[in-house]
């Protein structure tokens, strides 16, 4: 152990200089859930299977909402989705802007994002929280 202590004088730190050096994410990392909303049929299967009750779906109002703080990123919603509009991104959700508290949830609304015409249009990536 004395050797270790001596060696530590000449070696680089074991930690990264975060936030200047950020470890790249792995391909398999479970980062956050994305919804390709035009494809979504608002069936609420994702909400039903969510173990954390993070997803709220209101078909009448055309709303799909996920609470990023409640979400445990297990991927149960992705497996439950019948139209495969949900996907896992390996990028984690960005820090929450507390000047805008509702920012912890991310909402898709039919009023601003109409459903894709049939047959389904090419996936229009939706900006995310």
């Amino acid at each position, binding site marked *: 152990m004395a050797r270790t*202590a001596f060696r530590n004088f000449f070696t680089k730190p074991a930690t990264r200089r975060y936030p200047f050096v950020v470890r790249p994410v*792995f391909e*398999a*990392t*479970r980062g956050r859930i994305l919804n390709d909303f035009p494809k979504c049929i608002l069936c609420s299967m994702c909400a039903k*299977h969510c*173990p954390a009750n993070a997803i709220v779906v209101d078909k009448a109002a055309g709303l799909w909402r996920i609470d990023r703080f409640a979400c445990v*990123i*297990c*991927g149960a919603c992705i497996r439950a989705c019948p139209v495969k509009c949900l996907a896992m991104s390996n990028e984690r959700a960005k820090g929450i802007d507390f000047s805008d508290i509702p920012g912890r949830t991310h909402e898709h609304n039919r009023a601003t994002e109409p459903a894709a015409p049939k047959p389904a249009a090419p996936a229009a990536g939706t900006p995310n929280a």
Partner: protein
Amino acid sequence: MSAHEKAAPGPTVIPFGPQHPVLPEPLHFDLVLQDEKVIDAIPQIGYIHRGLELLVDKRDYLDYVHVAERICGICSFMHGMGYCEAVETLLGITVPDRGRWLRTFWCELERVHSHLLWLGLGADSLGFENLFMAAWRARETVVDVAEETAGGRVIFGSALVGGVSKDPSDETLKRCIAAMKPVRAETLRLANVVMNESTVRHRFEGVGVLSKEMAYALGAVGPMLRASGVDYDVRRRGYAAYAEVDFETVTETAGDCMARALVRVREIEQSFHIMDQIVATMPSGPVAVPVKGMPPVGEAWVRLEQPRGEVLYYVRSNGTRNLERFRVRTPTFANVPAMVEAVRGASLADVPNIILTIDPCISCTER
């Protein structure tokens, strides 16, 4: 009795925990002391009960695996997998070979990460901060490998009824094994420190001795039992792919804190040995079979070997999508009577060491 006369000193009761510097999780002991010697210890648990077992009748049986995984942060994959194995037994499902091999890989990865975490915490309990940092630095690579292969550093999230949900390529697995080479070398170096460093030996040798007979009689499990000289490892049952790999059951005979530390340190090497074989013989094919329909009426139970010892999962189904009962008997719960026995007779200053060498996981115990 006048104020000048002193009463004969009787036993003193010192509360230990639930908040204590050496305890990562809340566990309470009433230590009955005669002078500096512990003559009895009365354990009390129940500070972080979350009622996860009850959730099983509110959740779809296929989704509950995500809840089961969150029973514990250290053996998360094994909790998920244990639940899956129990449900698979109930449904009569056979997991494809590649799924079984990957499960074994992740189980052993978890064992390495748990034992390195324990080594850090154990070193911390005796104030050996240098060893603590070294063990946790080595562990960092292991949790990175977990993230690269399974998707999560702590909650692997890859267990699934019928198999596993992630399928890392053979190249990824080989790269991971190569990336863990330095961890292996570092573990051997740290094992040498544990065995030969005088500060560790002073605090661990001959402390908290649990005899072979007592360990067996009190139902101790895992490294606690093996450190007392009982050759018992549930992996020998051959679940997942353990029947196809060659490994040694690590046992020690002294039954003291040092023996328990050495069992864990040597098990890390065995885990790497198993992971090597798993990656070398990884079969190709599907990783999971689709699971449809309701589970049949009935019950099933399985046993696994977690880093802390034998764990038992029991499920009972009433034929609906929600199981009727789910029960986990965790290794720490089984080890509590043995822990009380090991603490008895020790001096007060040794109590933190002894409790830490059981590797208590209170979140598991209380679920």
